[in-house]
Structure formats: structure tokens, C-alpha cells
């Protein structure tokens, strides 16, 4: 169980994480969404014990993570950088992690290496970006941690490799109830992979919910009305976005399918249709509400 409570982290004058509180149940796969600079990587580094929170607490299995060897043995952090391993071979990485993780599984390591066909004796700077990622992920999985934190770890992988790595992660999860915290800008990936998501913006949590709940909560309506509709016409519904193209009005609203269709029904639409949104669309509309959208480009 991961418990993040009122966590604050500041880089000099900038507050990167501002009073974040998130609980992540054991065995789940948690997706961290957020704009650039939202605080995802900082939060993952605090989870890994790299950064010490200025205030608040980061606990895993009830114990503070920072400078706690016992807890750190249970987790593995894969950062968005791989350059630090450039002068190591995959064989050397295996030795390196084997020294520090008692749970390191040689057989698993070999099996994974065999699947992706990575050379053990070549230095990582000779690898492609994707191969480097594979190498680090393989090490992370072979360490058999109870908690695996991935910071944009699948970026740069080709679709096939992406599927293979995801499969490795899913196998590990299934195999031993590993908890994964996963940050990515690829929302489809989170959509496919995570059972719970948290959206961060400017260091604050926008929402932290089950993925199904998120997806079921935000609905896109396309309808034809005999007049222009404003958010004020839908009391009790949180309207994220409205748009009119010709006679068709599009409404993106939060509140669940039933509640939204009931509210829209009261406006007697001539035509009514409900469309389920992808996570990416939800992300865009949620961020738009927060003032983070591409409209700046139009100005």
C-alpha cells in the first residue's frame, strides 16, 4: 500500500508538488497523468526515496520511504533517463542490480533477455533508445520488486516492443501482485494498462480515481436543440466543454451517463446521442478547464 499524504516539494521558488495526497492499493497499476512540469517525475522520485519531501509523508507499507533500506529493497525506479547506464553492458547492469536486490531472478532475467534478444556484452551507448529502455525494464522486472515505478519508461519504444514490454509488466503483475506506478504522456497506454489514474496539474491532484470511473463519469453528448445551449442550462452538471458545429451541439460533461442524459433530456433535444470518450479526450477536456489547452496557439 502506497500512502502519499500532503506531500510538498519545492525547487527553490517553484512548488513542484503541492500538498498531494494519493493512496495506491497494493497490486494495482496506477497511471500518473499530467501536463509537462505537473510534478509526476518529482512524485515518482519521492516514491522511490530519491527526494525527501519538504513536508507531508510518503509511506510504503506503512513506513517512510526516504533513507529506508528495508522499503527500498521492495521498490525499483525506472527513470526517464538511461544515459547513466551508457558505460555499462547489460551483463554489468545485471551484476549491479544483483548486488543490491536479494530478490534478483537470474532465470527471469535470462528469459526476458532471450525474448527481446539483447546482447549482454555490448555497452548501452551502442544500443538504440528503445533497446536501452528494454534493458532497464528487464533489470527492473528481474529484481522482482514489490513496487515498480516507471517514469515515461515506454517512450521511444516501437509498437511491437511496447507490447512486449507491457506484456512483461503484466506477467510480473499477475505473477506476484506487483504494484506499478506508471507515468506517461501516452494516454492510450495508460488506458490499456492501468486500473487507476491520477491527474496532476501544477503540482496538485486534479483527480485520483479508478479508470472505469473516470471514463464513465465524463460523457460526450451530441444533440440538436432549437436554441443555443449554455452550461447554465444544465444545472447540477459540470460542463467541461461545449461546441456548436452547424446545428449540432457537442457537450462534454462530468457527472455520469444517467445524470447527464436526464439533464439534457429536460432541454428537449431534437436529436440526442451519447459517445464514450477516450482517456486522451478526457485529459484534453479536463486540462482545458484548468486553462491548459492548445487555444493559445490560435491567439
Amino acid at each position, binding site marked *: 500500500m502506497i500512502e502519499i499524504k500532503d506531500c510538498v*516539494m519545492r*525547487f*527553490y521558488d517553484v512548488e*513542484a508538488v503541492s500538498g498531494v495526497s494519493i493512496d495506491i492499493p497494493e497490486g494495482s497499476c496506477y497511471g500518473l497523468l499530467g501536463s509537462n512540469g505537473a510534478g509526476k517525475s*518529482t512524485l515518482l*522520485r519521492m516514491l*522511490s*526515496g*530519491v*527526494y*525527501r519531501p519538504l513536508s507531508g509523508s510518503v509511506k510504503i507499507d*506503512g*513506513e*517512510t520511504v526516504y*533513507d*529506508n*533500506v*528495508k*522499503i*527500498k*529493497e521492495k*521498490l*525499483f*525506479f525506472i*527513470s526517464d*533517463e538511461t*544515459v*547513466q*547506464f551508457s558505460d555499462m553492458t547489460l551483463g554489468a547492469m545485471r551484476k*549491479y542490480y544483483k*548486488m*543490491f*536486490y536479494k530478490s534478483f531472478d537470474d532465470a527471469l532475467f535470462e528469459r526476458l533477455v532471450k525474448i527481446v534478444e539483447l546482447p549482454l556484452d555490448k555497452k548501452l551507448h551502442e544500443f538504440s533508445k528503445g533497446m536501452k529502455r528494454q534493458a532497464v525494464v528487464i533489470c527492473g522486472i528481474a529484481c522482482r520488486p514489490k513496487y515498480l515505478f516507471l517514469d515515461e519508461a515506454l517512450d521511444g519504444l516501437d509498437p511491437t516492443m511496447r507490447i512486449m514490454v507491457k506484456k512483461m509488466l503484466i506477467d510480473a503483475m499477475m505473477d506476484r501482485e506487483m504494484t506499478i506506478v506508471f507515468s506517461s504522456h501516452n494516454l492510450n497506454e495508460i488506458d490499456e494498462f492501468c486500473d487507476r489514474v491520477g491527474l496532476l496539474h501544477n503540482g496538485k491532484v486534479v483527480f485520483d480515481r479508478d479508470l472505469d470511473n473516470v471514463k464513465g463519469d465524463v460523457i460526450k453528448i451530441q444533440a440538436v436543440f432549437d436554441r443555443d445551449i449554455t452550461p447554465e442550462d444544465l444545472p447540477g452538471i459540470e460542463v467541461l466543454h461545449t461546441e456548436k458545429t452547424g446545428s449540432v451541439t457537442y457537450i462534454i460533461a462530468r457527472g455520469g451517463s444517467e445524470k447527464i442524459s436526464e439533464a439534457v433530456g429536460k432541454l428537449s433535444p431534437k436529436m440526442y446521442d451519447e459517445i464514450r470518450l477516450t482517456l486522451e479526450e478526457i485529459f484534453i477536456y479536463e486540462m482545458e478547464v484548468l486553462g491548459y489547452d492548445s487555444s493559445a496557439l490560435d491567439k
Partner: protein
Amino acid sequence: MTAQPSISKGKFRTYFFYKLSKLRGKLVAACILSLFSYPMMALAVNILYDGLMKRHTDSGNIPNADLDMQVGMMNATAMLCMAAGIVCIAVLFIEGFFVVKSSFRSLYDKKYIDMDLSLPVSDNTRFAADILSGSLIYVVPQIAAVVIGRLVLIHSYGFSEESFYSDYTGIMEFIETGSIFMVCGSVMQFFFTLMIMSFCGRKLTANIVPILFGVGVPVTIIFLAMIVNSCAYGIEIGNIYGYFSDSFILQCSPLGMCLSVFFISQQRISELAAFPIELVTLLYSAAFCAASWFMIKRRRAERTGSAFVYKGGRYAVQFMILLASASVIFLPVFDRVNARRSYYAVSGSLVKYLEIPAAALVITWVIVNIILFVVTELVCREKLGSPKKLAFMAARFIGSGVLSVLICYGLSVSDGLGTVGYVPEVSQIEGVQLMDNMPRMVYGYNDHYVSDEESLRLITDFHRRIIEERPDFKWVYDDSYADEYRSYVHFSLDYRMKNGSRTERSYFLPKEYAHDAISLLFSTRAFADNYKLETDDKDALVMVPGNDGVYYASEIPYNEFAAALYKDALETTYEDICVDGGQMYKTLEIIYSNDNRQYVIVSNTFTDTVELMNRYNCNIFDGVYDDAVKFYMMQYTSEGSFTADIKYDYTADENGYMMPTLNYDIREITAEQANELLPHTATTPVYEESRDIYEVFCVYEYKNGDGSVYYVTNNYTGPRFVAEKQCDRAAEIYNAAEPAGSEDIQKYLPEYYRYREG
């Protein structure tokens, strides 16, 4: 529940060996450099020794040219080995910086933060393993090199006589004892670099700041010390050796420690050092290690990537640059203010000679520092476009600059941090060496060592008097060195303290103090102790000079002579022996049973000694001038010749006989005129700007066994200068006399005294 971070044994071992493996390259470098350091120097000593031996054994067996070539080759090889050794030691010292950089890469390289800090290793374990692995790979090869170096030396001792090595004792001492210091110094370098690096958050600053502090701190301290010295009456500005050499402040950085050891070795007081230098080095290292641990423990990993993880780091760098440059620039500025308080205003003089106005120095300092200040701000990625930040920077610059100048000024007016008024307590003094440049009534004795309590008391009282009366001194400042020299009496006190330290003071006193300072020598045992001969050698011979300058063995019992001489010396007063007294001096030679020789200068005022010598028919002061055949007077008017020939030193031959070089006017006088002046002459003149110096010069004629004639001049008994009160009469005689060319007296002089051009 929070787990307590501690050094887990298993994790420590794992991390330690991992770090060792990462430092393999540095280990190899340290091993190679160590192997070529002290062992190479020891090898050089052996090769030099072999060269010496070869010259001994093969001399006569092979042609000299061949021998010279072979020995020359050996010496050249030895020099190469020596140079390689010195270079390797210097590089080893610097390698400490690179070892720290490799060991603590996550301090300044962001990419290693995630890799190193997410590992299941506690902060304490990581720090301990990093320290141990880094210092081990750096220090162990050096220790091994010291041992090997010593073994090579021990091996050479086995087949050689130690005396052969006398020329190389410095190198041997360095290998035997200096090497231990160098190893300790390396440890200090490691921890000093680590401490400074713990402030840094970027490669750029981690590369520059430790070097900046490593060099800047000792340089600043030395220049600040020079400012202190420049204002401290009694401490010569150039005397950084004595004043700051063993100061813990100078020793607080590795380079400062090396400079301190160098200064101490220059003074040869290492054996007197109050505190073992190696221990000081290790104590500093321990302090730096503790400070590093504290800083690293408190550091916030997220700030890695900034120039400094602690804001204080930037301020410290900026302040150090300002203070260092202020100490350099303001030394000559304040030095000029204080120039009269300390004689050797070297830097002030330099500025004066270069004609750089103080204002130009200050303006240069301000401009250079503004540039450096802005550069450091830019390195720290400060947004200077913001008026608020710009104003803050300007305020900091002005504040730091004013503080730097105030520190320099404060030190400048602090009377040498109070050392001006310090006089050691008699109970703490082992002995004191007195030195002066006062006119020598008996040439040769210008430095005296006393250690008896009564003498020490009198000396410290006189010292106190100088300090108390200093404000009343009437200084006459002349621009030229020579004039200044004439206006002052130089008097030095070098206290050897019981705790092994030294306290040196060197005063330029108004001329009126000369009498009291010389009297001090007589009221203490300082003068008499020069006449304390060895008394346990009953068979020593007292050799007496004849008028022909040749020494003859006398029958004077040595022990009686020694006792009489010391008694006379103890009873001698300044008035007895003052320069205008018309005394005569003769140098006697003592030959000891072991063939050692000693010369003592005896005055005709030494009544007991003269009486004893007369009893044994050694009437050395009688009839000195009776046999003279020619009499001349010399007039010294040229300041240059006087200064060169008499004031600083005479030209002396191997027997100690003096003869001023020929740069004066000579006139021949009569025997009557010479005999009128001779009783009013003394061996050493006091030069006065207001008057000329006259010397009476007598020539004696002797015959060899084969009937040939040879001449001896009265220079054998010391040159005779006319006393001040008889100068007018001397001038009268001189002016009435006929000029004699220097060539006239050439035939009377021994070959080596004859006139030579230039």
C-alpha cells in the same frame, strides 16, 4: 514507523566493493604514480651515490674525461628519476580531486541521482563506503610507495657510509619524513575537496570551486597575513615564514598546509614545531570529513543541477573572490600608509617604483570584481533582467566589497592583531638570538645567543621599552634606501620558546637607541658568551700573531687564557670598547687537540688577558707601528665605495684579513703624523653623512732568509679608522699631504690585494 538509517554491514560491503570496482581506473593511476614517486626518488639517491662511489674508486683507473662522462650520465639519470618522482607526487596530490569527483558523482551529476539514490542503501552506508573506497584507492598506493621508497633507501644504507649521503640529506629527509606528511596531505586534499564539492550541484562548479577554494584560501590568508605584518611594528612584511608559517589558519587548506610546511622547512624549525604537522593535517581531515557528512546529509537531491545546492555556496565564492583580490590590491595601498611602521614595505615600494596610484588599484579592483560577480551570477543562472534581482545583486556586491575592504583595513590598523605589543614572558623563553647592524667595534660578533634568566630579563625589559617608547620615536623618512639605512639601527630578537615555537621581531630603531642596544649586549652575557671557549681541552694551543702577520705558538696555558678572556669579556663595557676609543685588536688562534681551530679577537682593553700574555712575552699590542717604513692616509668620501667595502662587509681573504677594495684617495703622511692619529683610531668606523672617513695605513718591511724584502701592512691588525673627534685634525693632515697614486702602494700589498680594475 520509520526505519533508522544505519550502516548495514551487508549493504556496506556490497556498495563498497561496487564502488571499488568503479574506481579501478583511478586505482591504476594512483598505483602507477605512487610507484614512480618516492621509490623513484630513492632510486635517484642510489644512482647519485653510485656516481660518487665510481668517482672514488675509478679515479686514476680510467681517463678523467671518460669518468666525467659516465658519472655525468649517472647524475643526469638520477636527476630524471628525481624529476619524475616530484612530478608524480604533484600529480598524485591533484588526483585526490579526481578521485572525489568519481566517488561522489551524484553530488553534481544529475543523471546519477536516480541510479545511486534509489538503490536500497542508506545515506550513511553510501557516504561511508564512498569515503572508504575513494580514500583507500587513493591513499593505500601512496603508503605502499612510502614503504618501498624507504626500503630502497635502507638497502642503500646497507652498503654505504651515511656520510656519503650528506649532499642528499634533503632528499632523504623528504623520502623518510616528508613522504609521511605528503600522504597525510593527500588525505586532507581528499576531504577538503569533498567538503567544498558538497556545496556544488553542477559539473562546472564541482570542477572549478574546489580548485578556486584550494588556491584562493591560502593565497588570501597569506596576503591578509602580509597586511597584518605590514602594519606590525617589529614584524617584517617579508617574514611570512616566521609569523604565519606554523599558523593553524594557513594550514586549513591542503595547499596552505604544503606552503606552511615549506616555510617551516625553510626556517629549519620543523623539529621545534609545537604540534606534529601530520597530526594537524589529520585533524583537519577529520574536521572536513565531519563537515562533508553534515552537508551531504542535509543536502537536497532535487537541487542537484543548480550551480550550488546551498545558496551560501555562491555567496561564499563571491565573497572569497572579493576578499582575495582585496587582500592583494589593498596590501600595497595600506602598506604605504604603514610604511614607516615596518621597515620592509616591499610591496609598497613596488607600487611606488611602478608609480601605480592607489586610486588606479582600487578602480581596477572594483571593475574586475563587478565582472567576476556578474559571471558568477550568470553561472548560477540568475535572471539579471529582473530589476529586483539586479538590485539584490548590487546590494550584495557592495556589501561584500565593503566588508572585504573593512577586513583588510581592520587588519591593517590592528597593530598586527596585537602582536606589536607582545613580549614573551621570561619563563617561557628557552633563549634568544640577538642580531644587529650596529657598528662593529669587534668585527665578527654581530649575533649573540643568550639563555640565562638574568640576560633574558634585561632583554625583555629592553624589548618592552622599545614598544612603549615607539610612539615617541622621531622617524626621519628618507626616500632612498641608503639614507634610510643610515637613519636607523636594525635590531632583531629571535626568541626560541620552550614550547618549540619561535617569536621573531626585527626593529628599526632611531639611531639614538644604538648606544642602549649595544649596552644591552654588555649588561647581559650576550657579548661575553662569544668569549666562552671550550675549557675541557687543557692541551689546546694559543697561537699569537707576530707583526709579520704569521701566527706563532705561545706558551700561554690555555685554561688560564680562557678564564682570563671570559672574565675580561664579562667586565667589558660599551665605553671600554666603543668605536671612538682608540682600542687595538688582534686576532688570536686557538688550536685544539683534535685539530679544530677557533679565532678570538682580543682588545688591548682586556686587562687580565693582556697581562697574562705579557707574562709569557706575547706583547702583541706593543710596537705595532714602530717598524713601519711608510705611512699613508686614505679618505673615503664616496658613499658607494664606503657602503660596498665597509658597511656591508669587507673583502676578506681566507684568513679573515680585511682589505677595502681600492676606490678611495690615498695620501702619504709622515711617521709623526701617523703616530699622532693612531692612538685615536679604531678598527671599525661609524659612517656619518656629515663627515669623511680617514684610515691610517702603515707598511712594514721585513727580510726573508735570502735577504729579499717583503712588506706587510697594518691591515693584518685590522684597518685603523680615525675616531670622530679627531676627524678635523685628520682632515688637516690629509689635506696638507701629497697625493699618492694607488700604484704607489701596490708593491707593498700581497699579490691578491693588488689593484684590479673593476
